[in-house]
């Protein structure tokens, strides 16, 4: 944890809200993300669909925890590697599948694709393919909430590599000055494409930069369910209470390379081995049971339900038609009174 956070601001492991039910919700989201990611990889590797996909294997838990903390009307902004964030926020899985496959019933009629998932009903406002560009947009979403006093919080996800681009700097400075209700959620998976953290980022931890914006900065183990949920909860509540932004850095790992099919030769074997030891995929289920938050059967039930939902979603996606060619030139401009 970063020294900028005072002791009394640190959430207890639970907070009143973070009890068994909460963690069952986290588990459901976690498992959905995991299985959905696996199935995307499977349809691609098997050749049934051809698309550029950025796997989220390894980052399921941190997104699930954040998603479980957020209200439905809170806003999120995420990136090309955003499946976990989108699912955790509640985007309908079937429409998400349809979008990934470029179909008319996709969230964006197939026009956006995996890098640009948008679903305002669940608060997924922007998914960007440009590194770092979500942060300035998050400022504006949070600004709107601040002006309206609507109590919404905006969470913007980005990677460790994104912390080196100009937009990061401008956004943290402005958010701090304006005390915007925003959480800068850095998912530090230790790689930016093929570049290891320390070869691109000059400070030991991204959170070290919070002080340069006089901003609350918190680093958390993204593989630890309680710590992660607690840190997410605290950052969101901090923003909701009008106290301003947090830079929240969650340590995690990217197990399946930058994109599906790209090699990971450059990742040292021992780094992978170390990550496997703390992989939530291995640890989160036993933890739920050990904590008494759910029984093996209860979790099995959740898993079964998710499999059925996914079966439906995959079918829905492949069954949906491609958009008609007329769609090419619609949505370029809005109507506007002027037209």
């Amino acid at each position, binding site marked *: 944890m970063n020294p900028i956070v005072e002791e009394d601001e640190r959430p207890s492991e639970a907070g009143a809200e973070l009890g068994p039910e909460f963690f069952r919700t986290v588990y459901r989201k976690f498992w959905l993300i995991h299985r959905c990611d696996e199935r995307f990889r499977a349809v691609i590797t098997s050749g049934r669909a051809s698309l550029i996909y950025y796997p989220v294997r390894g980052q399921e838990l941190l997104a699930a925890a954040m998603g479980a903390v957020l209200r439905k009307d809170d806003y999120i902004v995420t990136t090309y590697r955003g499946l976990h964030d989108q699912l955790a926020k509640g985007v309908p899985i079937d429409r998400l599948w349809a979008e990934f496959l470029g179909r008319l019933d996709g969230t964006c*009629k*197939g026009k956006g694709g995996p890098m640009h998932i948008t679903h305002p009903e669940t608060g997924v406002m922007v998914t960007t393919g440009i590194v770092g560009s979500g942060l300035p947009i998050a400022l504006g979403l949070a*600004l709107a909430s601040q002006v309206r006093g609507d109590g919404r919080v905006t969470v913007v996800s980005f990677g460790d590599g994104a912390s080196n681009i100009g*937009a990061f700097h401008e956004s943290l400075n402005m958010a701090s*000055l304006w005390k915007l209700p925003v959480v800068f959620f850095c998912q530090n998976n230790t790689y930016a494409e093929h570049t290891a953290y320390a070869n691109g980022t000059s400070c030991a931890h991204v959170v070290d930069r919070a002080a340069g914006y006089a901003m609350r900065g918190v680093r958390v183990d993204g593989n630890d369910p309680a710590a992660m949920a607690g840190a997410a909860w605290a950052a969101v509540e901090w923003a909701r209470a009008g106290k301003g932004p947090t830079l929240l850095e969650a340590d995690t790992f990217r197990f399946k390379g930058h994109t599906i099919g790209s090699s990971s030769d450059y990742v040292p074997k021992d780094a992978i081995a170390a990550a496997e030891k703390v992989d939530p995929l291995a640890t989160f289920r036993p933890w739920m049971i050990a904590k008494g938050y759910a029984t093996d059967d209860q979790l099995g039930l959740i898993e079964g339900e998710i499999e059925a939902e996914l079966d439906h979603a995959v079918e829905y996606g492949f069954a949906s038609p491609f958009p008609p060619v007329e769609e090419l030139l619609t949505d370029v*401009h*809005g109507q506007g009174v002027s037209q």
Partner: protein
Amino acid sequence: MNVERTDPTGVTKLAAAERINFAQASTLALHEAMRTDDRVLLFGEDLADREGGGVFKITKGFSTEFGDLRVRSTPISEQAIVGAAVGAAIAGMRPVAEIMLMNFVTVAMDQLINHAAKIRYMSGGQTNVPLVIRTATGAGAGTGGQHSDMLEAWFAHTAGIKVVVPSSPADAKGLLLSAILDEEDPVIFIENTRTYRTMGAAPPPMLRVPLGKANVVREGTDVSVIGYGRPIMDALLVADRLQAEGVSVEVVDLRTVAPFDLETILASVAKTRRAVVVHEAVRNFGVGAEIVASIQEELFSDLKAPIRRVASKFSPVPYSKPLEEAFMWNAEEMYGAIRSTL
């Protein structure tokens, strides 16, 4: 009673004026928009009263009247400024962000091109980005290579974003009002620092000038001059001169540079069968090229002469006065180009 208190922006007095300049046109339009729709937000460098109400004083009094939530000075962070506008627009506000001078959009192109322009399309129409970027530029004041460029062609080449360049204070006011209150698309509104003090007739309150429609400023039968912004004023003078010489010039002001009103252009050229295109931006690969290409494609066999272009020369904007003068388009060149089509 303190005037500053009751009318901090000075618009009450201004609203009664019969003539206003371009700077006042922006002040009035912003004020009417702020008053009409409380989703309108203003932000940009130095524009709140704590910072003196903006370097051009256009927003003087606004933060006092409308409050610090709706009117904010920003750090020098153009990516954050435009990004904040994009986000606020998506969330349902109508932000008007100021980029002090047009050359500074170069640090914010990602937000404008990859995001503002495309988000509506990429979301399949679920989200709009109704923001306005007000910016100013123009050669002729000795501001040199990095403070004088007209870059509208870049935005015109980008689907999803609109570009407006006014040629009179009344148009400036009406177009800006429409851009803020009526548009669902991002709009780049380009002001000219050289004409901020140029006067013109004041339009009635709240009069909007719709985007996307060109304005035939002067009717004529022999040749069409098509353009936008500052050169339109010269075109009208040149048209007077040619009138005296027996040549009837039609002047078409695009008002909205992109998407432009091809119909009005074609109607004019179909009548005159001769055209000259004018703009302040450098000639090569400028907006004029698209207008020429479109006309020749549609009216090939009607044309009696090659379409000429009058624009600034193809170099960075030089500092030294005589070079800067030589760089800029001028009325004499316009005259010559028109004559050459006859």
